[in-house]
């Protein structure tokens, strides 16, 4: 009887810990979204707007017949890539001018008081990020990007993109290493489970991945 009470208390304690952990991480990510979704970023379209301050993760600027837009894609990663001992951040943003758009990493350096957008790295027009790691000054991204003959909505090129923050350019392209994995279609399927019901698109994915 006493043992049962011990077990039930232990289970309650573990559940409480898990719930607390979830609430803390949820609150932290909500605060991060609030911060990064309302920051000032540089644009790659200076003839419309040199900088934009996002409001609730989105901003549109117009000039003449042209318009420019930027949105925060609710993905962020931390790491000290300028190696000054402060926690910097990498944020995924999407920039668009007219119909043309691109997915970028914005490198945000912490200057002791706030985050400042210093450099950017181009991923692809549409990119699916599997993971991102910061190792020293290098930012390593495992992702799917558009490759030849992909439709714009379906990036199937599995690559590892490497950015070196020490590079001088403000707008960087990644050094890309191609990866071909038997698991690529499975990863794509998990990211879009509806594809299970859509076998022709499976054939499409397989053909594009050139696995078999």
């Amino acid at each position, binding site marked *: 009887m006493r043992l049962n009470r011990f077990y039930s208390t232990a289970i309650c304690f573990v559940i409480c810990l898990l719930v607390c952990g979830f609430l803390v991480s949820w609150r932290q990510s909500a605060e991060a979204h609030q911060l990064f979704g309302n920051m000032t970023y540089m644009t*790659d*379209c200076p*003839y*419309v707007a040199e900088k934009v301050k996002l409001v609730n*993760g*989105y901003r*549109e600027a117009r*000039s*003449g*017949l*042209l*318009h420019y*837009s930027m*949105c*925060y*894609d609710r993905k962020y990663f931390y790491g000290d890539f300028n190696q000054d001992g402060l926690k910097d951040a990498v944020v995924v943003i*999407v920039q*668009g*001018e*007219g*119909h*043309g*758009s*691109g*997915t970028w990493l914005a490198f945000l350096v912490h200057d002791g008081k706030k985050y400042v957008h210093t450099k950017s790295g*181009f991923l*692809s*027009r*549409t990119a699916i990020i599997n993971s991102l790691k910061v190792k020293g000054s290098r930012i390593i991204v495992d992702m799917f*990007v*558009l490759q*030849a*003959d992909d*439709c*714009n*909505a*379906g990036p199937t090129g599995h690559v590892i993109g490497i950015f070196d923050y020490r590079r001088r350019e403000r*707008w960087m*392209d990644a050094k890309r290493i191609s990866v071909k994995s038997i698991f690529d*279609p499975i990863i*794509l399927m998990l990211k*879009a489970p*509806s*594809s299970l*019901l*859509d*076998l*022709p*698109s*499976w*054939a*499409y*994915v*397989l*053909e594009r991945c050139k696995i*078999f």
Partner: protein
Amino acid sequence: MALKRSGFDSRWVQHFRRQSVATKQSSDVDAWLERETDHVRKALESASRHFDGNDNLTVNTLEAVYARESSFGSPTMLGKRGSSGAAGHFQFRPDTAKRYGLNVSKNNDQRFDIDYVSSAVARYLKDLHTFFSKDTTLIGITKTIGIKNPSERKKFVLGAFNAGEGNIAKAQRLAQKAGKDPQLWAHVEKFLESAGASKTTANEAGRYVENVPLYESEFASKSPADKNIKQKEPGKGDTRCTEGHWRTIDDRRVFICD
């Protein structure tokens, strides 16, 4: 040594191999046409009413763009409703969609409604055609250079649809400065990177302009879509079709330009 697979795995592999073989026997266009339902075809035909005798855009242009953007609305490819990035049948960004009168929200995202979005795409293509028909000031010193040759002009329209009209206009000016012909896509596309587009975007725009007309000509010969719905008379004036209102005609939502 052969890789040993589980029964489940090998069943899937066999299925996918069969599918791959099946798709290789016919072209991509055939596979897309199999996906084109009556509803989709009618939506595209209806949207082609925004084209007229001044342009060489047709319902087949819309079909080719639809194929290139989302593989004819494959559910794997569409993205999330209310997404702040490109999403929906034609991979429209929210701001472009809003500019052309569409709602973009989690509960009501008209980028996923083929009737609404095809109309918006047709109007956007028509506007781009207007920009590249004669010199047009987009902003400040960023001006397009009018293209006289209709087939060349179409390349610029598709390039602008993919990479943004500002980048193309800037590349035209750079090509002109370098002594190249700003009315030839082959010359202008080489200046896309200098105009501010990333290397990948520039390469992709080149492939887009190359592939979409090929798809279009194949759709023209194979698609049952009615090409005669497009207005035959040249349109009057070059007003943009971003302002207007939606009306229901024959149970379809149609955008009437003001």
